[in-house]
């Protein structure tokens, strides 16, 4: 099962993932159509947390609390890709799923998938159509800094463990030099703003 992994230290908060997701999810598949459209659905949200950034989207958990909480049959799992999918046609926006999602990955609004003129729950669908064609999810394709990685769950976990050990033993983070420099600048900028406030 392939999943989207977040290497947040490489996130430059450029929001290319958000734009790509909005275009991918929009019925017209065009940036011009998605801009200024209040029904545009963006399934990934880059959080700015002081000097850090984190692209937040559904983790497609297994077992998934949202799937087990949905009383209207709207949330299901694709047996092939393992993606947790939300069918807006069945969703009643009752918030049972949002109540138990620890990641705040489910939001509500009137989207292009709303059938009854009211808000529905929406979240990342792992670009289920795209990945079945052998492509990566739109956000991963758009990410140029390596903060979003689409990879096999177990293999990547293994590599991460090796990397963590190397980091622990050698003190090397494995973050590219230019990204490290950017992080440094961002940290200083935030520190400067904080000091300015006091």
């Amino acid at each position, binding site marked *: 099962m392939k999943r989207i992994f977040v290497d947040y230290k490489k996130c430059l908060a450029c929001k290319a993932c958000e734009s790509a997701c909005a275009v991918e999810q929009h019925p017209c598949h065009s940036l011009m159509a998605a801009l200024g459209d209040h029904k545009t659905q963006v399934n990934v949200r880059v959080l700015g947390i002081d000097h850090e950034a984190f692209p937040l989207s559904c983790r497609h958990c297994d077992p998934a609390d949202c799937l087990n909480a949905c*009383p209207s049959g709207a949330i299901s799992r694709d047996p092939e890709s393992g993606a947790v999918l939300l069918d807006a046609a*069945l969703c009643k926006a*009752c918030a049972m799923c949002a109540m138990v999602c620890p990641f705040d990955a489910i939001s509500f609004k009137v989207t292009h998938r709303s059938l009854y003129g009211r808000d529905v729950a929406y979240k990342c669908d792992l670009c289920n159509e795209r990945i079945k064609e052998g492509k990566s999810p739109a956000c991963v394709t758009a990410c140029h800094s390596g903060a979003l990685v689409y990879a096999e769950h177990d293999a990547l976990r293994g590599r991460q463990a090796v990397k963590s050990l190397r980091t622990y033993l050698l003190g090397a983070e494995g973050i590219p030099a230019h990204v490290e420099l950017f992080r440094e600048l961002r940290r200083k900028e935030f520190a400067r703003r904080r000091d300015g406030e006091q």
Partner: protein
Amino acid sequence: MKVVTVGTGMAAAEFVQRLRLEGFGGEIVMCSDEGFAPYSPCVIPFYLAGEPLQTVYWKGADFYDRYRVTPRLSDPVVEVDTARRLVRSAAGRNASYDRLFFASGARSWYPRPEWLETTGVFGFKTLTDMVAIDRYVSENNIKKAVVFGGGFIGVDAALALWHRGLEITLVHRNTRLLSQMTDEDGGRFATAKLAAKTGIDIRLKTTVNEIVTNGGQLKAVELANGERIETALLIVSIGVSPNSEALCGNDKGVASNDQMLADPDIYTAGDVAVTRHAVTGEQGIFATYPNAMQQARIAARHLVHGDGSFGGSINTNVLKKHIDFPIVSAGRFEGEPYTWQQGDIWRRVYLQDGMINGYLIIGDTRISGFIYHLYLSRKRVDRNIGTIISEPRHDSYYRGVLGVH
């Protein structure tokens, strides 16, 4: 082996589906006092709000065919003969079982059952109720309604009919709506916000005492304070009681163990089952869908594989219907309160021994999942709970993960 379910509600549907998924090949009979495929009670009010009936069948309208079930519908089960392993219906039909799944749910409790004989007075619990209300409202061009009872179902009813365009008066005996899932302050906040956002006329600390009829047709209701409200539609939703008479002879619910067994060959689940609370350990009926589903899965697993154990129920609930104003709560409202409010958002967490004992999150679902997991995992949060609920950008979970404080 032959399995019979009493009830075709959410627990029974989940149970039967699980049985089939786990490879159970025996005969399954499902009994119901209604004539529908399994439907979701959480969804049925939306039918009144104008959404298609098809969506209420949360596991598909062809459920009985797809899972090879013999349905026995529109014929309530009135007696379970545990000695002879038989269930008897009101029409006098018997069905024998090897294993019984008793999930008959709950029914509306009416202070004056005779009111229901009047045209224009309805309960708000079943799809039968919804279809009747829908037909009544359309055929008589109803413009006003009075909802008696401001618990979860009452508020649900008021919002569904409000969404349909009716002018609603909501009568509730307590000082605030949703008194079971809110504390005093939170409940008052939620009540005021609901009234402001919808324009529903909320009458607190009073009850509907009498109905005024004319030739069997409802004309008006009289409140305890003597006030008279003209209306041709009254919804009575002041409480429910479990349908446990057929098995236990009383309406106190069916006691169960951690395998969801009420008897060596009778499983129970859902709104009729008395279970243990996962955090406090107290016995009670925790009538929400996630509990019913987990209980049904445990029962199915135990029937097929002989193992599995239920970890307990959680009294967590959320009301968010027709307007974007969620009210989330869980646990007990006792202990040391931490409150935070900003505009439409109101949060309160109760701590006991440094752990979350209960919480109430109104106006916004952000961080509610994080708080829910902190509550379940019994983590100590006394040092940072104030920060968690008051983080201006609602990102306390991610702050913790990234180590940015």
